[in-house]
């Protein structure tokens, strides 16, 4: 009786309580309008930044378009960069359904890559597709296992998953470096310590008719599967209930601890798969090239996507494009290479700010008729 909403509710006489049929449509529009407005605002803010540097914003965005999307070559470059991001973003977005903030995907990526490289070594001469499947299983299992340690500590002992996952990422990277530079090192890799190669036969070739490696397809399929899991299954519903109100989930008897661990397994598995694809499609072996910040970029993308697995697809392409255009911008406009990171920062802040506007603009809100 003391809130505006309730006063409003009281005003609705039974006859006028007919449902607002267009509310679901307006709500859907609101979820799209927010990020779009945020991207525009970020572009405007970044333009001011460029003007202060004495550079032309129109040249910048034209070059960016050229470097990221305009030609087949630049588009392939963009999509190539987007591929691992699709999977690492899922490592954030799936646990986020339960209200967990997992930021340690980088550890799962490198250990997933390492596990994939190692399992291929004794399998010389085995049918390559089988080797690739085993590599994928090993990579996903390593990533899933790694992130699920964080999930276990959270579920059973109540430790803060954000801090644990970050620390675990550092431990994972250290473990990776130790193994690659020590017991698992190929003595022939002099300047860049690496494991033995998986062999050319076991490399994943491009998607037919393109230069793109299959990781892109894997990532898109994973995003769609995760979306289906979260929005169409009772398991995903249970996760969303737990993330929305833990006490309500307990009261409904939902297995909260198991859900937490499961979400971490799924997310970690995706990140581990990203590492496997980097090894099987790009590097051919596990080395420091795997520690490229994909896990951290995934955090950014998951937040930009508002933790929606389908939105991860366009956002990964956008961020992949910004990365792909970086070199061209640097050469043509004489901008420092951190400039694109400034743009990313603007986008991130604008998107987070737009989240706070959800539910605040009256036009999108439910209306009582009459």
């Amino acid at each position, binding site marked *: 009786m*003391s809130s505006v909403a309730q006063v*409003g509710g009281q005003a609705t006489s039974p006859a006028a309580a007919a449902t*607002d049929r267009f509310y679901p449509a307006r709500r859907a529009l609101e979820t799209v309008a927010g990020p779009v407005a945020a991207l525009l605002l970020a572009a405007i803010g970044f333009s001011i930044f460029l003007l202060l540097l004495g550079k032309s914003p129109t040249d910048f965005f034209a070059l960016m378009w050229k470097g990221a999307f305009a030609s087949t070559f630049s588009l392939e470059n963009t999509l190539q960069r987007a591929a691992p991001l699709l999977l690492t973003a899922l490592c954030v977005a799936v646990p986020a359904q339960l209200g967990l903030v997992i930021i340690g995907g980088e550890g799962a990526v490198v250990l997933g890559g390492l596990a994939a490289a190692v399992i291929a070594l004794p399998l010389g001469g085995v049918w390559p597709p089988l080797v690739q499947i085993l590599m994928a299983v090993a990579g996903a299992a390593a990533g899933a296992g790694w992130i699920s340690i964080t999930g276990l500590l959270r579920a059973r002992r109540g430790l803060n998953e954000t801090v644990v996952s970050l620390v675990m990422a550092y431990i994972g990277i250290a473990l990776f470096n130790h193994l690659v530079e020590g017991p698992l090192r190929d003595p022939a890799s002099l300047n860049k310590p690496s494991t033995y190669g998986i062999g050319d036969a076991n490399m994943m070739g491009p998607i037919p008719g393109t230069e793109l490696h299959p990781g892109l397809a894997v990532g898109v399929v994973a995003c769609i599967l995760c979306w289906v899991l979260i929005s169409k299954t009772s398991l995903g519903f249970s996760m969303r209930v737990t993330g929305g109100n833990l*006490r309500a989930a307990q009261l409904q008897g939902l297995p909260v601890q198991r859900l937490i661990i499961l979400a971490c397994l799924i997310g970690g598995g995706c990140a581990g798969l990203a590492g496997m694809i980097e090894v099987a499609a790009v590097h051919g072996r596990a080395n420091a090239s795997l520690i490229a910040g994909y896990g951290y970029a995934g955090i950014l993308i998951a937040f930009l996507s508002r933790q929606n697995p389908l939105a991860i697809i366009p956002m990964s392409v956008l961020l992949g494009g910004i990365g792909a255009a970086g070199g061209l911008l640097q050469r043509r406009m004489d901008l420092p290479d951190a400039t694109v990171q400034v743009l990313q920062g603007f986008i991130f802040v604008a998107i987070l700010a737009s989240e706070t506007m959800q539910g605040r603009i009256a036009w999108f809100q439910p209306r009582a008729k009459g």
Partner: protein
Amino acid sequence: MTTALAVEAVGITKRFGPFTALGDVSLKVAPATVHALLGENGAGKSTLVKCLLGYYKADEGSFLIDGKEEVIARPADADRLGLGMVYQHFTLVPSMTVAENLVMSRADVPAVVDWGKERADLEKFMADMPFKVSLGAEVGTLAAGERQKTEILKQLYLQRRFLVLDEPTSVLTPQEADEMLSLVADLAHSGSITVAIITHKLKEVKKFADEVTVLRRGRYAGKGRTADLEPADMTAMMIGEPQAPASVERRGAAEAEERLLVTSLRTEGDAGRAGLDITKLAVHPREIVGIAGVSGNGQKELAEVLGGQRVPASGEIIVGGEGYTATRDEAQALSVRVLPEEPLRNGCVPRMSVSDNLNLRSFDRDAKGARKFWLNGSAMTDRARRMIAAYGVRAPSREVPIGVLSGGNVQRCVLARELDGEVKLLIVANPCFGLDVKAVAEVRARIVAARNAGAAVLLISEDLDEILELSDRIVVMHDGKIVYETPGAGADAQSIGAHMLGSH
């Protein structure tokens, strides 16, 4: 000592968009009196005092404080004038102690707090108060009743000269409520404070208020001296015609075999309070067992254990002859349902839709109760539509987040969900907290109907009137233990009250 203020609101109008929450309402509160502001939910009582306290800006009208017109545009203006409010929803910081909350609420907290001196001052202040709260207790560990007391203490500590109490006694025992209201009335009559009480409890108005102003649907509906008015007159002003909500009759006798049997149940105590220590508690089919007790004596813990929100240290819970640990499968198989206290906080996911919230019990079950993997969107929508119609839930759309609904409508949703289908055991905690007269009658009728249909009902409530009205059998909890048991028919409120306070 402060001196009481005279407060007058003249012709206040407040609109929210096209909706007029308050139309040309005037209120005159004489200094050093207790003034009741009476009305149903949505009558505009809270809106009026929020305008007075600067939380809302009135569209029209003016305020006279001690006869002088004052502009109250912000809460700070009200603070400066010495106007304060105890909210129905709590405003304390849960992670801080009572002492820290009190000191922090002052406008003049020094950069470095001399806690030795503050503590001594607070202890002196507390010694003059008729009800006590442990200064060192963390507010988050206090039960609702104790928090409410702390809120009142805070306002007294801040030396308010005009104090609004928003439904102050809804969580207190009769003894506590009487004690607190007489303290407040004494303070007012001694000339140090003027009090306005927002309430819909007629008994309190009659007993403690000097004057009453009644609002109905955002309009002034009458006023008078309480000495001259009968409860029936006030009810008539409040809802248009004098009528008491009809209570549903309890029909049929309890069955012999226990549906719920709790034995040797213990939990760890928190923050110096004893945990649960229940030797035996049984509830039979077609029986409502009411658990009375001063808040903070283990009722909340008991509700949490039975609802799966707290793990007991030891003990056994048997439902229908089988061990029960509150998992989803057990609750499903044994038809155990829970109406938690503060349903939005404990039983709903505020940002999920009304439709999703209505399906929390059943989204993963097919018609036979077996688990299913895929959600069935159309079945969920149909179920939501059916429940909304059957329980008269008022919502702009099934798809709005349940958090935007009023308290009464949230409770209707939870009732609809938990009472759907066969109910063998129903655990209920404070089901009517903060609801208006009509909603209260409706909720109680639903609970009794579930009992008449064969459910065993455990009713945990801090409202003794509710327990007396509904229970077949009453047990009293004190310090985590069951200390008294009596049949509901002919139960003596005074002796229950004495056991609640541990002074029998």
